[in-house]
């Protein structure tokens, strides 16, 4: 086994470069992480009507997300059971059946093997079609429009897997006004390749609050929603900036927690309509969500490979591994379904100039991930672990601010400015996955207790 404990030493705050550049460890990750963890697959609105399908990925593999005749959503491995042909080579569309172009086996929208040429003549009707349908994920969960899947039936249900992190995902999927799942995605999923290990973006979105210098150029150029700098949120001056991590789950976020009596921000001065819209939403949200209305998730990572931006550009990104040295990013952009067209357009423009390969902010992240990875591959470099000491030991359980008790383990970076608490939390969980033989050993203690009851 390529992975060995010791590569991750969180007492010293050191992590070996091997886990990023070693190819054997990478192969183990495919089995131990991507075939066992919950992965984001897409959005219900991509398959709005029965018969709709959209191709997605889970780890290295192509999957089909579709809605069957009775409206139920499925996720299947995109590979024919006969000789493995990729049965669906379109990014999206609508169909009644997936017919394999090699020998013509066809599968229903529910994955069942419905058509087998010469079934009677050549198979004498003896092929057990029930056994040879498309490989379906072991577990599927549609949550407020988002679709998640897992290959391991021993894994806990999605919401249990999320634990209290659910609140943060809610803040991403609900409308800005707090309306239950009030979001929709903009058309078009961005897909592009980055020459680095998938964990570079994963740790970055887990809450790397330290890489300001990366973005200094865009701050100078100024692309913020109010046209000034990259992101501007006056109301946050009074807020606490927190690193919030769920131990034993591997989820973490950088969020702002507003005081009870926070002024409602006056952002987006660039456009009155937009400004008014957000102002109104702001108020509505606080009313609707009560205490949680004070929480503003900036960025976060749901273990292992799903990231979100909670404010603007509001989006969900997945880091698909493409070998130890390459990552394929897919990103979906979210807006309030009920928002006025002008608001959607305004946000869309901002999203495009901020995110993705043409995004003035992320361009520099990708440059750094690329050459950080490249410069870590050599035999000498590998002898020198990365440093994750930042604000080590400063986190607290049950962090409270102005009457709000924050779940999990929190590190207040309002004054500390930055910490690597979230990153340590991510890799702690990563190591557990690499070591555990099964979900037996992976289920977080609280859940096990629960189960025991």
């Amino acid at each position, binding site marked *: 086994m390529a992975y060995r404990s010791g590569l991750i030493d969180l007492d010293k705050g050191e992590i070996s470069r091997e886990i990023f550049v070693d190819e054997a460890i990478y192969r183990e990750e495919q089995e131990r992480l991507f075939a066992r963890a919950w992965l984001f697959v897409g959005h219900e609105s991509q398959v709005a009507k029965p018969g709709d399908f959209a191709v997605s990925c889970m780890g290295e593999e192509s999957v089909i997300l579709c809605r069957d005749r009775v409206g139920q959503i499925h996720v299947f491995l995109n590979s024919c059971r006969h000789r493995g042909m990729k049965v669906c080579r379109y990014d999206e569309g609508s169909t009644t059946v997936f017919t394999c172009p090699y020998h013509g086996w066809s599968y229903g929208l529910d994955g069942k093997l419905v058509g087998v040429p010469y079934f009677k003549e050549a198979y004498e009707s003896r092929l057990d079609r029930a056994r040879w349908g498309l490989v379906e994920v072991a577990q599927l969960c549609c949550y407020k429009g988002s679709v998640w899947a897992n290959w391991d039936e021993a894994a806990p249900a999605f919401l249990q897997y999320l634990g209290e992190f659910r609140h943060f995902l809610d803040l991403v999927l609900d409308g800005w006004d707090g309306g239950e799942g009030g979001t929709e995605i903009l058309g078009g999923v961005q897909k*592009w390749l980055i020459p680095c290990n998938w964990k570079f973006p994963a740790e970055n979105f887990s809450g790397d609050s330290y890489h300001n210098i990366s973005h200094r*150029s865009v701050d100078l150029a100024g692309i913020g929603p109010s046209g000034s700098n990259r992101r501007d949120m006056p109301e946050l001056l009074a807020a606490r900036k927190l690193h919030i991590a769920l131990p034993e789950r591997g989820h973490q976020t950088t969020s702002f927690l507003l005081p009870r009596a926070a002024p409602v921000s006056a952002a987006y001065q660039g456009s009155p309509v937009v400004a008014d819209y957000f102002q109104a939403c702001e108020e509505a949200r606080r009313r609707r969500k009560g205490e949680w209305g004070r929480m503003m998730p900036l960025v976060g990572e749901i273990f292992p490979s799903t990231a979100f931006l909670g404010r603007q550009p509001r989006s969900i990104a997945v880091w698909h591994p493409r070998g130890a040295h390459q990552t394929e990013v897919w990103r979906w952009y979210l807006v309030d379904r009920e928002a006025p067209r002008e608001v959607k357009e305004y946000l869309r423009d901002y999203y495009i100039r901020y995110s993705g390969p043409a995004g003035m902010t992320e361009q520099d992240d990708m440059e750094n991930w690329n050459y950080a990875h490249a410069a870590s591959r050599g035999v000498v470099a590998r002898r020198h672990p990365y440093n994750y000491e930042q604000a080590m030991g400063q986190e607290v359980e049950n962090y409270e601010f102005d009457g709000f008790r924050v779940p999990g383990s929190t590190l207040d970076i309002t004054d500390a400015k930055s910490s690597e608490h979230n990153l340590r939390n991510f890799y702690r969980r990563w190591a557990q996955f690499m070591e555990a033989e099964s979900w037996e050993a992976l289920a977080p203690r609280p859940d096990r207790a629960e189960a025991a009851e």
Partner: protein
Amino acid sequence: MSERDEAITRLLLHREIEEFLYREADLLDERRYEEWLALLTEDVRYWMPMRRNVKFGEESREFTREKEDIAWFDEGKDTLTRRVRQILTGIHWAEEPVSRISHLVSNVELAEITPSLAAPGEVLVKCRFLVYRNRVETETDLLVGKREDVLRREAGGWRIARRKIVLDQNVLMTKNLTFFF
């Protein structure tokens, strides 16, 4: 005007446009970004949609929609100017050190001339592009596709009023797009 004379007029215009596009390419490849910005009209639209793999007959779904869906680029002059400004900070790491870029522009055709060949005010120009980028040691990108430009004649000469970039890729095989097409 004799047919031949008209043909010659057409020829001269074609050459004029071609020359404009080649000089534009020089400005980009020589990193003279501010001069390049000056070639864009104030109301310029710079759009590069994303492309999907769709079934035969469903071509309408191939491209993401302008001003509706997400795109690689969908910009006006303001953002383009900010992009230039970012590069010129000298700390836009994605372009530090700067890329070595060549724009090959070919198959230039005038698809539409308005109001008239005699007094051309706007021209719709189609071409193919090949953008070669090489950075740092051996990092290399090759981007090939089609372009549809609307050039408008203004006081200072021709200006780019609209550029549609059709890149022949689905998954973008370049880590970032820190350059212009």
